[in-house]
């Protein structure tokens, strides 16, 4: 049943995600600068960068295929779709019938696939380097993410994110050790997937240490703007998933407009705190060498599996 308020909530969520994502990135950068005792760029800096890039011309390589030109739009579209699935404001979303947690992971995988393909498309060394490393990280991060989502699904008996949020928000306070483990695993996976320290440094200039940035080297103009926007949106999506699984209180259940309006400041508050924590983690860790990334993600996978096992053992 698609209700009008559901549609409104869905639309609001999508627009909000697209608009707030660069703000989140700007906030994280500002927190990082504060923690490192240097002066930060203005919090709206990402918007200025996007505006600047949209105005510029696109420069394409001779041998760029149509895939390369379509890829940025495709990637942004897929991640926006993923953002539509994640319940950040309300749980009565029309998309819920179509997509659950597993489909969400699939959408993110599709985005990753296209980024990698487009990076290899032009045939430069750094593009292929970045694509290979991204696939390595994704290959290990995806099972870990799935395990975390399965743990939450086992607790709420459904893979639909909306149901998970509703179940977890309305249960009385129970200490779930499995969710504690799953939380740590999820943090590790999001750090890896969003190209954050300790897996990848988003501010690096050294191509040989890049994973995500290396894939963006060939883009320019509005294509680059779209890719940067997509990266911020991905961070937003992961934060949304994390909040939905581990801190689901405040999300409006059902379709009352008042609940959705009230959920907005709660969301902003939670994202702000999340941004500070992310900056803290980034500051306290050092970037690790590439060959340690499998170990890191192996530990995340392990914690995910453990959380599932613990749920079966302790919480039945």
């Amino acid at each position: 049943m698609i209700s009008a308020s559901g549609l409104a909530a869905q639309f609001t969520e999508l627009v909000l995600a697209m608009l707030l994502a660069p703000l989140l990135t700007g906030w994280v950068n500002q927190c990082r600068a504060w923690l490192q005792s240097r002066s930060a760029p203005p919090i709206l800096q990402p918007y200025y960068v996007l505006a600047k890039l949209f105005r510029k011309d696109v420069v394409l390589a001779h041998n760029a295929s149509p895939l390369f030109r379509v890829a940025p739009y495709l990637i942004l579209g897929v991640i926006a779709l993923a953002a539509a699935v994640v319940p950040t404001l309300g749980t009565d979303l029309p998309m819920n019938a179509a997509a659950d947690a597993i489909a969400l992971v699939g959408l993110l995988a599709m985005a990753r696939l296209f980024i990698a393909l487009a990076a290899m498309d032009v045939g430069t060394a750094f593009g292929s380097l970045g694509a290979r490393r991204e696939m390595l990280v994704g290959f290990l991060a995806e099972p870990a993410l799935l395990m975390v989502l399965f743990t939450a699904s086992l607790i709420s008996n459904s893979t639909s994110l909306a149901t998970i949020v509703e179940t977890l928000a309305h249960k009385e306070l129970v200490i779930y050790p499995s969710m504690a483990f799953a939380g740590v695993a999820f943090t590790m996976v999001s750090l890896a997937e969003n190209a954050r320290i300790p897996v990848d440094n988003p501010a690096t200039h050294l191509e040989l240490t890049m994973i995500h940035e290396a894939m963006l080297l060939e883009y320019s103009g509005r294509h680059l703007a779209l890719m940067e926007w997509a990266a911020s949106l991905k961070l937003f999506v992961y934060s949304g998933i994390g909040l939905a699984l581990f801190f689901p209180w405040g999300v409006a259940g059902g379709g009352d407009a008042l609940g959705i309006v009230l959920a907005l400041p709660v969301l902003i508050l939670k994202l702000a705190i999340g941004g500070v924590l992310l900056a803290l983690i980034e500051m306290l860790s050092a970037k690790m060498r590439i060959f340690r990334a499998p170990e890191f993600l192996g530990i995340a996978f392990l914690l995910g599996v453990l959380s599932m096992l613990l749920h079966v053992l302790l919480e039945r």
Partner: protein
Amino acid sequence: MLALHFAPLLAKYGPQLINLLAAGLLLLSFAMLTQRRILSLINLFAMQGFVLFLSTALVAWLTWQPHLFVSAALTLALKVIALPWILHRLIRRLNVKWDVETLLNIPSTMLVGIVLVILAFNLALPISNLAGTVTRATLGIALASVLLSFLMMITRSKAVPQVIGFLAMENGLFFAATGAVYGMPMVIEFGVALDVLVGALILGIFLFEIRERFDTVDTRHLERLKEER
């Protein structure tokens, strides 16, 4: 006053807290399995002892068994204070701080660890169902912890991590005893604690001797007595 406020809260969330502590114990066992620095191994071992102390004290409070308080105090004295101190002194004098290679690489070790955990959970399930304690679900975790310490002993090449694995195994057994049967009779507990202490001391003495004779505490050098002699 504070206790009065906390008491009903503790009673309600007690079993969940115990489950949380058990999960923490399992996590610490895995962390010990994948740890390379011997110094952090000892600290993890001390943390494991502390988690054990907390859970024993909690069970003692929830079920009002006075001998468990004594047991918890013994754990604190022995496993959180005495043994880590002995171990720290040992590695300082032996000058081993790092265990550079393990016999199996770390991701594979973790995979084998997961398999062992599943095995342990399966094995403990029929016993858990029969237990009448508030902590029966933790028996599987205790058994898993024992098996993981055993794995740690096998995959290490230096002698000190093997010793720590041995002591961690005893931690797991103690947790099993607390979980399944609210602790063994006191005389047994004392005997076991004494054994552990004496064992650690003897191992310490041995490590010195080995260090003097072999100039290393890498146990791969201790493989000359093979069959083909």
